[in-house]
């Protein structure tokens, strides 16, 4: 049951081989045993989880269950969940018990009847690529506990990789689903911007943030995505479009598929072991009937610079709400109101979050707005235009998800720029608003390598199809970390 797919778990629950309460206990026991080593969860509330499981069992008995009713899931601690502590990895929200549900949580708990096992660790306010900026300490990669799991959805990634949960939610602003999925041997999907509601998902950079599933396979991701999407009037950028079944095309043959390989993703700057695994995956796709064509994303080298203007600018605005007045941390000693703001924010935010607020404040300030913020937005259009051009000659784009495998804890923590460059292949996708995935495609030095798939707008079903067919032909995604029993 620990390694079962969501489909298998669904069948086991439907045929009463196991109850949701039993299944939930199985995973809660693993969390109790393995979480002290991994630090993947920051909040677990067994009673709450078991209550949801009992409700799910009642639905199954009454014949009103959906396909995922009773299946446990780990929630990234960026999603507000009523009655659950929701910290976003920050001291600022270390004692915040959410009075409401994010739309994603409401859908999962309500209509779908899934059981939340707890809230997973993450980089503070989702700002990081290693999970080392969390106020609750770093998460360890189950493949090598001296290494990072990636970030910012590092807790979700480690939890699923070590099978502390069958699946998890993540969010992706610059690669935060795809990069940890790559580093932990998972399948993760960042949908087209606007497909998954951002309501109740604590905002980092609102024009880039998007929630999505992290799981063991494309099939699992498709089933999860079905429960997460949908128009939401509470999110002003939610898209009102027809409901899709994201699993509908999973088995479609890949004959005739045109894979675009961006010249810029296959040059220098990527570890040789990662590149070898990615090239082998493309050769496998050719065996499955696809053809590879070279494409170009000539402005992709500008995605990291433009992102580190746009994302901090939006973050500095979003995080101005943390002022010690309505919720969150307030300093103990202060004088005036201004002093209270200054001390609460100085003590409540960690170093990386402060850095990004300062960058954002600067690039939006008088005299610098045109040179930085507007220039970054113009470059954003060039980057999005590159993809439009590339998709004229291909159906999906492929390349590495991350330029390296999981790095050592502390290795990049002292140099923000080195850390930022670990998202060099993922950021452009967020700037353009396209869907992207990471799929396990092999190992380098015993550590997992992720293949990135980038689709055209609303191409999620096709991406999942392309990933699923590969997973039918290979078993990389079924490999489990050897040190975790």
């Amino acid at each position: 049951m620990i390694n079962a797919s969501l489909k298998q778990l669904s069948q086991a629950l439907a045929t009463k081989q196991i109850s949701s309460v039993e299944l939930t206990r199985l995973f809660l026991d693993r969390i109790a045993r393995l979480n002290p080593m991994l630090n993947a969860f920051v909040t677990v509330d067994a009673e709450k989880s078991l209550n949801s499981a009992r409700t799910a069992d009642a639905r199954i008995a009454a014949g009103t269950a959906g396909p995922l009713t009773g299946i446990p899931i780990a929630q990234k601690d960026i999603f507000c969940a009523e009655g659950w502590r929701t910290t976003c990895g920050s001291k600022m929200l270390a004692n915040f018990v959410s009075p409401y549900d994010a739309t994603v949580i409401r859908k999962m708990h309500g209509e779908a009847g899934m059981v939340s096992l707890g809230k997973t660790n993450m980089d503070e306010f989702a700002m990081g690529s290693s999970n080392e900026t969390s106020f609750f300490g770093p998460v360890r990669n189950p493949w090598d506990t001296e290494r990072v799991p990636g970030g910012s959805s590092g807790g979700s990634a480690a939890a699923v990789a070590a099978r502390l949960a069958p699946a998890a939610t993540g969010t992706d602003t610059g690669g935060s689903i795809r990069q940890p999925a790559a580093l932990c041997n998972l399948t993760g999907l960042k949908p087209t911007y606007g497909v998954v509601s951002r309501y109740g998902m604590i905002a980092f950079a609102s024009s880039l943030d998007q929630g999505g599933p992290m799981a063991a396979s494309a099939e699992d991701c498709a089933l999860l995505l079905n429960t997460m999407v949908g128009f939401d009037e509470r999110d002003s950028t939610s898209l009102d479009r027809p409901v899709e079944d994201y699993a509908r095309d999973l088995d479609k043959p890949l004959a005739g598929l045109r894979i675009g390989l961006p010249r810029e993703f296959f040059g220098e700057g990527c570890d040789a072991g990662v590149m070898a695994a990615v090239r082998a995956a493309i050769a496998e796709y050719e065996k499955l009937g696809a053809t590879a064509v070279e494409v170009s994303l000539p402005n992709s080298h500008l995605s990291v610079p433009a992102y580190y203007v746009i994302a901090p600018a939006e973050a500095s605005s979003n995080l101005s709400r943390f002022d010690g007045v309505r919720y969150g941390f307030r300093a103990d000693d202060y004088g005036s109101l201004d002093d209270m703001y200054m001390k609460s924010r100085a003590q409540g935010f960690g170093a990386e979050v402060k850095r990004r607020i300062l960058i954002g404040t600067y690039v939006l300030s008088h005299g610098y707005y045109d040179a930085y913020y507007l220039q970054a937005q113009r470059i954003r259009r060039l980057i999005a235009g590159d993809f439009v051009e590339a998709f004229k000659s291909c159906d999906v784009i492929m390349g590495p998800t991350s330029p390296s495998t999981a790095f050592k804890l502390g290795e990049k923590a002292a140099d923000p720029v080195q850390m930022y460059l670990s998202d060099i292949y993922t950021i452009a996708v967020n700037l353009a608003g396209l869907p992207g995935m990471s799929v396990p495609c092999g190992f380098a030095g015993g550590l997992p390598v992720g293949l990135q798939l980038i689709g055209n707008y609303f191409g999620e079903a096709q991406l999942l199809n392309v990933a699923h067919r590969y997973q039918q032909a290979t078993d990389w995604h079924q490999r489990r970390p050897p040190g975790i029993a």
Partner: protein
Amino acid sequence: MSLTLEQVQRIAHLARIEISESEARTTQSHLNGIFQLIEQMQAVDTRGVEPMAHAQELSQRLRPDAVTEENRRAAFQAVAPETEAGLYLVPKVIE
């Protein structure tokens, strides 16, 4: 471009984040490293390119002007650092 210590302190003040001089110095060196990366943008000629604020070209939706939310003041104030009689307490602003 290179930020001076005074500029870092000024930005921190604008962002309402208290910063000591030694923190400001560390921050200054980190920010200057990051701006070196960002400066790559300045070499690009973007004349005539329309700024892209958002991935989807959307206009803001309007909704009927009707009350849709229920009053949950007690629940929302339960998470506040300090309240009294339904009000948020902050230090005195006007003497």
